[in-house]
């Protein structure tokens, strides 16, 4: 009887010790993990950035304009001349005639003459839609990016509808010169061709200006289109980004 009680007590105290050990071990492991985590998240990145502070600073903080005021020696003047000629070389790149810049992300256009902004406004560009018909026929409606030139200027342009215009409407594709391909008034009063079928033209959907809804062409509002048409000559550059 006595021996059984002692064994029971002994077992209970053993269990207690095991429990204490497990709890202590867990706490220690968690503490270690937390320390590691703190080091990895905060200390190492901070050390990585802070290490540079141990090296001496070698470069000036003053601004270029402030420095230019105190220039005097020939060496500095020579350097100034060099900078001027480099800047001139860069400025030479500006088109001699008015040019157009189109931002396809914001759907905005900017008409420039040299560095002077003549007009800015909203436009519509490619919708980034991929039209799929069956497995083989695909059309991507996006405005191409890069430098283009005005190849042709037209008044009262007639739109010769390409195949995708019929496919998009669920209509059968007519023959290349079928009368149903020719639409009057859709492109507005003017059109400026950029090549490969892309144009800057007007729109019947004025409410969509400022949004990416076109099949790749650049649509302008009536008043903007008139100014752009009258300002840009054939050969003028169009920068699309």
């Amino acid at each position: 009887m006595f021996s059984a009680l002692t064994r029971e007590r002994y077992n209970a105290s053993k269990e207690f010790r095991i429990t204490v050990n497990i709890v202590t071990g867990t706490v220690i492991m968690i503490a270690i993990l937390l320390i590691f985590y703190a080091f990895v998240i905060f200390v190492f990145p901070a050390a990585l950035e802070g290490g540079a502070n141990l090296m001496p600073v070698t470069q000036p903080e003053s601004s270029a304009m402030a420095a230019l005021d105190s220039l005097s020696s020939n060496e500095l003047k020579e350097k100034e001349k060099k900078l001027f000629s480099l800047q001139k070389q860069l400025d030479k790149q500006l088109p001699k005639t008015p040019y157009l810049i189109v931002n396809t992300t914001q759907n905005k256009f900017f008409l420039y003459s040299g560095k002077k902004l003549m007009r800015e406004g909203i436009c519509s560009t490619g919708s980034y839609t991929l039209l799929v018909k069956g497995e083989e026929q695909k059309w991507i409606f996006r405005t191409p990016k890069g430098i283009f030139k005005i190849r042709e200027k037209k008044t009262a342009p007639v739109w010769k509808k390409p195949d995708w215009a019929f496919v998009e409407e669920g209509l059968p594709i007519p023959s290349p010169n079928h009368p149903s391909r020719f639409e009057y008034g859709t492109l507005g009063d003017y059109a400026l061709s950029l090549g490969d079928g892309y144009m800057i033209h007007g729109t019947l959907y004025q409410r969509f200006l400022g949004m990416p809804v076109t099949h790749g062409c650049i649509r302008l509002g009536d008043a903007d289109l008139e100014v752009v048409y009258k300002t840009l000559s054939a050969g003028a550059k169009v920068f699309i980004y």
Partner: protein
Amino acid sequence: MKIRIIILFVFFGLIIAVLGTFTVLSILSPIKAIKNLNQTYYDTAYLEDGTDEYFILEKEEVFLKAKTKMLNSDSVCLVINLADSTVTLELQGVMLLKSRIDYMQSSKIFKRLRRSSYLEYFSTPFNIETDFSTFPKEAFIIKQAPKDTTETAPPVAKPDSINKEAICFNLYLDRNFRIDIRQVDTLKNEQYKEYDKRLRKQKISYLIQSLLEFKVPEYHPWIRIDIPASEAKSIFKAIPYHGQVAIKL
């Protein structure tokens, strides 16, 4: 009991030693980067004792030269001028977009470079190697052609999602350079958290990998720029996948 205490002390001692070593290696990383850059890009003919004014003009010259080199590219190039607090998009010398920097931060190592090393390092445009962003560069909507006119849907305009998106992107350039561009007052939404998490994860996994190999981790110089959301979005969508970047600090 005593043995346990000794084991615990040894165990903690080891942990502290490892963490200490890792910390030291981390501190050494930018120092090593400065030394490497100073060795790789050092021009022995250059006189380091010129005036600050002269060096500022030299920096401008190097910047203009890098821009001149980009004239040969027929793609849109990114120009970052921290001295003027501007970010511009240029195409063959024509400025397409100009954005004023609202907030900027850069690696401290640049102020610790030798002047000749700085001039050499920034004398040629950087090339973008990879990138990642909170929004897609080009997102296409796939539309199945209707079978007949009854299926034709009227034209629908997509609303601009810019107000709901967090606009942030990272450009990894050659010469180990990294650019982090974020919108001013970034929306701290899920996209932003995911972006931040990805950046931190990349940094930490790289750090741990180097430290486990007991190597000094390679330091990547960086700049962080905050600009308006619409401009940040336009910039990222306009620059080509392997575009060029000219930088002036």
